[in-house]
């Protein structure tokens, strides 16, 4: 049951990313290009995504446990550390360079060609290196 729900969520997420234009780096870079031909589409994607999710957080308060068992996540931490600020800045720089973030990079891998594969391999390496590097730089 948990596996089926996870699969369904991933499938809907991936097709939503595809339909919305998030897997097209031209649209993503257009959204970030506020000094050029700015493309507002991604604002509609984010707005559209936040609505059902905000409703889900409301429903979560009224339901005792997830449908397929387990527990709901704890309330969000309020800690704004250096890891959050530095990490988000590095992520934003990478996102602005290529126009891909993790979800769309995965969703588009079947048609992304060599470039898509290079991005995914480099992203995986970055993910594996993040913890030891963060400790080394004493960011956490």
């Amino acid at each position, binding site marked *: 049951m948990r596996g089926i729900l996870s699969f369904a969520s991933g499938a809907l*997420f991936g097709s939503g990313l595809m339909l*919305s234009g998030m897997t097209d780096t031209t649209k993503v870079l257009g959204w970030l290009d506020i000094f050029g031909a700015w493309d507002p589409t991604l604002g509609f994607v984010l707005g559209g995504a936040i609505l059902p999710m905000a409703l889900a957080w409301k429903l979560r308060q009224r339901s005792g446990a997830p449908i397929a068992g387990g527990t709901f996540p704890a309330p969000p931490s309020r800690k704004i550390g250096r890891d959050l600020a530095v990490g*988000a*800045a590095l992520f934003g720089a990478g996102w602005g360079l290529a126009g891909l973030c993790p979800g769309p990079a995965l969703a588009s891998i079947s048609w992304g060609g060599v470039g898509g594969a290079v991005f995914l391999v480099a992203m995986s390496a970055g993910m594996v290196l993040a913890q030891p590097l963060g400790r080394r730089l004493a960011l956490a």
Partner: protein
Amino acid sequence: MPEYIWGFTGGLMIGTAGAILLLGTGRIMGASGIFGAVIDGSARGGERREKLAFLGGLIGLPAVIAVLFGGQATHLTENFVIVAAAGLLVGLGTRMANGCTSGHGVCGISRLSRRGLVATFVYLLAGMVTVAVFRHGLGMI
């Protein structure tokens, strides 16, 4: 149909996917957290299987749609040095900040998480500065 309607409709699908994962399994839908925990081995047993199922859907359905309808393109730059540097930064940054566009952006903002709001502000700003510098300053992207 205008682009923003496709964007909004796709956005509703993304948010509904997050709602299914939260209300169904109690997990937050963050692409970098799910993929990162699978490849660095921090998710084990049942949790790992759930994350693999999510990734199967995330990669699988778009692949099927692409085969059936065709015409998809990422329009990624052909400069692989930039692509590799971008991937490395995205991987490092999202794991350090513990979230990306889906986790901090969609799931965090929708519950008014302070961390989600701050992270989203910072990565949007960094992305806009990067495009300004590399497109309009250096002409590289």
